[in-house]
């Protein structure tokens, strides 16, 4: 049973990591806490549910790949429009404007989703069902969860590779470390900022796409995820990828074992951890001041 609890914790951690990664990248590179991040995730969810619904009968992996690609493209596109039109004028503005405009965008996207997809919940569990379950130490475990963990690991590795090894990633990190010097070096700030934002938005979309086979896409689905992602990023450290990973694991495993042994504390404990870390180390476990 312990193994299963750990697996559950890992799965939740994977889900959190995937949904908070984009938030973390945007916070790191741009210094903006994007309250509309959850809405981008919701876009991903609705788009993926739509595509999976269209492809009934196709092989599970094909459905998922198409849905995830479509979700990433659309969430990325919305991110692109959002960044270039609404956020661009905000970088030089004080914090309150940055926070409030993303708050406004959050409301706009919520209603736009309703306009486009209607208010009904969208179910897209075909890939989840098709993958079935396997036995792990005598316990049944859904294959899809393992699949999500795998995809998350791949996505994490990809982002690590991108940030550590590629020209693009190294430039993004340079911006994150020292904005002024990056500008003085002639690094194309504008273009890279857009790229980072679109990347973050696409990751949110991917998170939404991978979640709809397990839970229906519903209006307002982004709000709760935003809070969870927010907790992870706060715990891990603003803008730190390593911190996001550690934060996800901490939250995921804590929750899994709390539910198993002292269920009443499930949510309060998470908030308490977050607040405690903020009090002791406000920049988060791996954040830089």
């Amino acid at each position, binding site marked *: 049973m312990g193994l299963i609890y750990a697996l559950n914790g890992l799965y939740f951690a994977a889900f959190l990591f995937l949904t908070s990664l984009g938030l973390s990248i945007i916070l790191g590179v741009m210094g903006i806490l994007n309250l509309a991040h959850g809405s981008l995730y919701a876009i991903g969810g609705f788009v993926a549910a739509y595509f999976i619904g269209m492809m009934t009968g196709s092989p599970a992996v094909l459905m998922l790949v198409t849905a995830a690609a479509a979700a990433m493209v659309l969430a990325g596109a919305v991110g692109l429009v959002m960044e270039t039109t609404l956020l661009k004028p905000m970088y030089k503005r004080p914090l309150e404007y940055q926070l409030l405009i993303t708050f406004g965008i959050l409301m706009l996207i919520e209603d736009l989703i309703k306009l486009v997809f209607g208010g009904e919940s969208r179910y897209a569990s075909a890939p989840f069902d098709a993958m079935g379950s396997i036995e792990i130490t005598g316990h049944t475990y859904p294959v899809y969860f393992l699949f999500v963990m795998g995809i998350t690991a791949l996505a994490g590795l990809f982002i690590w590779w991108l940030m550590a090894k590629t020209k693009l990633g190294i*430039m993004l*990190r*340079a911006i994150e*470390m020292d904005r002024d*010097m990056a500008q*003085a*070096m002639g690094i194309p700030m504008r273009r890279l900022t857009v790229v980072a934002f679109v990347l973050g938005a696409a990751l949110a979309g991917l998170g939404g796409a991978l979640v709809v086979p397990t839970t229906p896409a519903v209006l307002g689905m982004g709000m709760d995820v935003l809070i969870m992602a927010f907790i992870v990023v706060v715990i891990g450290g603003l803008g730190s990828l390593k911190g996001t990973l550690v934060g996800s694991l901490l939250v995921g495993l804590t929750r899994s074992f709390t539910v198993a042994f002292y269920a009443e504390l499930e949510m309060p404990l998470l908030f308490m951890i977050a607040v405690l870390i903020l009090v002791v180390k406000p920049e988060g476990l791996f954040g830089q001041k």
Partner: protein
Amino acid sequence: MLLKMDKVDFFVKKTQILRSVSLEVTPGEIVGLLGRNGAGKSSIMKSVMGLYQPKNGSITFLDRDVTKDSTRSRVLSGLAYAPEDSRVFPELTVAENINLGVWVSSDRPQGADFHHEQGFEIFPKLQQLWDRKGGTLSGGEKKMVAVTRALALSPKLLLLDESFEGLAPLVVRHFMDAMRRIRGMGISIILAASNLGNASKVVDRAYVVERGEILFQGTPEQIMADEKLTLIVGR
């Protein structure tokens, strides 16, 4: 004329930092910018780089008015800057720091033409440091990386802010050699320094800056001959 600054005024909010600053650099020159801390040397350099936007006056580079250009387009047209505090990216390796310059300059129409060997020639020690993280370097090593990183942008004019400060005498000599070698590559230099001492050995000409104004321009010998100026910039 490589660079021409004409009557540049710069303000932070309502405080005037630069007062009608004019200066010129011709190809192949090493020009000194001498003055105390806070005299306005860094502000002049940042104005040239487009990091500061002057209120009045113009900046011409390679006979083109660049006053309104972005920093990036100035970098691509041949300006590069190594700031006073080096500002080496702490989490990037030396190689990555320098490669940033190569990558940016590869966006120029003529592409990048800097090779790591050129850097090693100027600062042989870089070879040993190549895979170290920027944050782990000593002050002098950081300055080497900062200069090489700027060189990697394949500039025509290099702005070096306080490149000698805080260096041991031996290293200073090394840097002076490096500067002569850089000039040998056909790159002009503006060198900011808080005293004439070391700078006098490499600069062809110098401007004395005080309170955001250019007090004087001339050869190091002329400056040394003027008692009032030596009080400001040392001998």
